């Protein structure tokens, strides 16, 4: 056979192969379609990093783990109080230092073993040990709130505590969710990829940065909170456009954290999709370096400009209404504790400007001797719009004619190092609460022990320190509210920090109409078991 004939043969055989393959493909597509379970696919840009609750500290990791693990108690955002969950009930000693929890009997872990007090003790102790090794970041909460754990009997566990008011908030965070001692010890590091919990969903497969498959746990103890779908797949996307496309083509049923802000507004118009704007417990704020700006008049001038000129523009222009001005460090989601103390800095723009100029002049600044500020911000940590926020703040402050602002965008690691060293005069930060309690919104920022070293604020007021410490010892809600109101009033007087806005855009969710049961709770949890299709 000559060469030409050979090549003809090759071509003919290729054509035949393609035809056969295509034929089989078409035939198989009908037959092979697998039996459909009810599957709900959630698309997100926010990575899940850890599935070991002792290690998980990123928002999305915890979000998933709330559905894979159960905590001893849980915050009920309808009744606005802590309710029994894995623990049936609990006693508190009169001084608030000893808490005894009675575990529900017959609660099964995903591997079939039963939850016992031994597991709870193990969870706390192993978390602390891992914390010391630097691998269990959120376990600082256990360390700062609890003294030690004691097993009373198989279903009773006793905590000796340092900070009575924080026992319930911390116990309801994922870091305190019991892990099974036997499985956790056996799996070691691997527990982080394939965890065993007591929750309504179990983890089937986790590919970091690609997908996470959750499956209904049939033996879940609480039939009322059992999963309503067979599977939930969480798919991780790299960019918001891709997520939007996938949602529109129904490759995903739900898009959660984050589409582009413009997309939310755009998708609101579509009839087959639902957009819900939640009010997240997250806050954004500006830290003032009190070492560099010790004059309270200057700080008040900044508050006037920011709340009357900059924040409205940021909310409307940069975030297109997907944000809400914030008037205290405490989130308004904690209704009992929230006091909108910064409202007094909201004036018509001209009045606010006049007020700020007056204060700045009184502090000794003029056109020839301008207040020079370095505004630090993180380039990507808070999303791609941060630089534009910084620009708005800069031009708002500069309208006074007495301030000159230099913006400095830095990568997160460098930024963190710099603001702690006090390099900037003012800098933009954000806060996701560790636990849903006013303490977490005030103590870290304003107590002199952490204000400087953690936030670069360097605020120290003995009166505030005392109030914050006192509030930690009190368990009674009314009394605590009173103390925290006092702190917030002082905050608005001293202005070491200016609360700015609530990032609604980080807590909006879009889903197809036939998906039911989606609710964004005030404490920031999306309960997956409530979802049905």
């Amino acid at each position, binding site marked *: 056979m000559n060469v030409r004939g050979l090549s003809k043969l090759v071509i003919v055989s290729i054509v035949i192969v393609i035809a056969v393959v295509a034929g089989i493909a078409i035939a198989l597509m009908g037959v092979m379609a697998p039996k459909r379970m009810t599957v709900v696919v959630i698309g997100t840009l926010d990575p899940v990093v850890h599935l070991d609750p002792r290690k998980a500290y990123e928002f999305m990791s915890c979000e998933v783990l709330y559905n894979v693990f159960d905590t001893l108690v849980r915050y009920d955002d309808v009744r606005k109080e802590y309710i029994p969950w894995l623990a049936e009930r609990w006693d508190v000693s009169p001084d608030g230092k000893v808490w005894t929890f009675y575990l529900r009997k017959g609660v099964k872990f995903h591997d079939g073993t039963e939850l016992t007090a031994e597991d709870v003790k193990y969870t706390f102790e192993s978390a602390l040990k891992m914390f010391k090794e630097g691998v269990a970041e959120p376990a600082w909460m256990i360390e700062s709130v609890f003294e030690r754990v004691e097993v009373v009997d198989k279903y009773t566990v006793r905590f000796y505590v340092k900070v009575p008011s924080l026992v319930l908030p911390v116990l309801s965070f994922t870091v305190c969710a019991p892990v099974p001692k036997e499985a956790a010890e056996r799996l070691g590091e691997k527990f982080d990829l394939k965890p065993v919990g007591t929750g309504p969903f179990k983890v089937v497969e986790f590919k970091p940065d690609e997908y996470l498959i959750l499956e209904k746990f049939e033996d879940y103890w609480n039939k009322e909170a059992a999963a309503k779908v067979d599977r939930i797949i969480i798919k991780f996307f790299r*960019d918001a456009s891709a997520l*939007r496309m996938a949602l529109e083509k129904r490759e995903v049923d739900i898009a959660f954290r984050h589409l582009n802000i*413009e*997309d939310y507004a755009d998708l609101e118009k579509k009839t087959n999709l639902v957009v819900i704007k939640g009010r997240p417990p997250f806050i954004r704020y500006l830290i003032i370096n009190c070492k560099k700006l010790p004059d309270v008049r200057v700080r008040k001038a900044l508050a006037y400009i920011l709340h009357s000129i900059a924040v409205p523009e940021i909310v409307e*222009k940069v975030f297109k209404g997907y944000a809400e001005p914030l008037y205290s460090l405490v989130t308004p989601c904690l209704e009992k504790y929230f006091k909108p103390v910064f409202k007094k800095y909201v004036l018509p723009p001209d009045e606010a400007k006049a007020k700020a100029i007056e204060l700045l002049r009184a502090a000794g600044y003029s056109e020839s001797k301008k207040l020079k500020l370095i505004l630090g911000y993180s*380039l990507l940590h808070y999303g791609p719009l941060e630089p534009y926020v*910084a620009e708005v703040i800069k*031009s708002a402050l500069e309208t006074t004619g007495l301030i000159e602002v230099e913006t400095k*965008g830095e990568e997160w690691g460098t930024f963190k190092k710099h603001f702690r060293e006090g390099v900037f005069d003012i800098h933009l930060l954000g806060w996701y609460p560790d636990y849903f309690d006013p303490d977490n919104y005030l103590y870290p920022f304003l107590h002199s022990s952490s204000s400087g070293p953690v936030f670069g604020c360097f605020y120290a007021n003995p009166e505030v320190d005392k109030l914050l410490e006192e509030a930690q010892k009190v368990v009674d809600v009314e009394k605590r509210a009173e103390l925290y109101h006092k702190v917030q009033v002082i905050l608005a007087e001293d202005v070491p920090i200016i609360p700015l806005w609530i990032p609604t855009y980080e807590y909006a969710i879009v889903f197809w109409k036939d998906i039911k049961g989606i609710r964004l709770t005030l404490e920031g949890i999306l309960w997956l078991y409530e979802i049905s299709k």
Partner: protein
Amino acid sequence: MNLADLILGRKGLRKSLEYKMFMTGLSIVTTLVVIAVLAPYIVPWDPYKPAAEEYIPPFTDPRYPLGTNFLGYDVLSRVIWGTRNSLLVAFLAVMIAASVGIPLGLLSGYVGGYIDRALSLIMDSVYAFPGIILAIALAFVLGPGIVNVAIAIAVIYVPTYFRVIRACTLVVREQLFVEAAKAMGADFITIMRYYVAPNVLTAAIPVLALNFADAILTEAGLSFLGVGLPPTEPDWGVDVSAARGDIVRGIWWTTFFPGIMIFVATLGFTLIGEGLPYLLNPRQRGRIR
């Protein structure tokens, strides 16, 4: 052949495709340089501030001929200012690369021996490596900023100059006039400066043009990936990256215009680099890369 012959297209050059390519490239580049230099005087709006409401489509409002982006920045002003930044980074990168690569190439080629072998090995390794990946690592460590990006890009091109110059030097150093100079007792510096360098530098010119093209592309790529210029800086790569989310909403002008400028600028320098070697030496068809 001198430059005047070249530009005026004498000696029958005018007909060749290479000549046309070269001239097209030259006019594109000249226009861009003029835009870059005059940018502060010709931008209709401040490219650092919103000019109007967001997403005005192009060709509808004469005040914003190319439309506005998601924050209401004027696209035309951003594109004009972006020319300035892109060319500046590319220019710095090429200059840094040439000023490191050329002396090293001369040294390596002329001196030879172990120095030559060691340098060649390092340069060959870097040369073999995908440029943008090295640049990502460097840009990551150095942080954003015009000079930092320029340095990150420059590192990629040092080996290119090194290789070209070294190869030429190897030929030139065997030439009689170098031997003569050596015999007359000229010192190393003198030989390099007056005898070797002038004879090898012409080889670097087409490389320069092609590197310019590549540098613009690489800078845009780095900025697109978020490791180039800071995100508020008007820059083609930054602007495409910031606007890529618009695509799904069918909004094309915010990515298209900055994107096409990257293409045009790169094309301009590529055409020069393509045409030049042929025009300088019509018998040579290959491209020096």
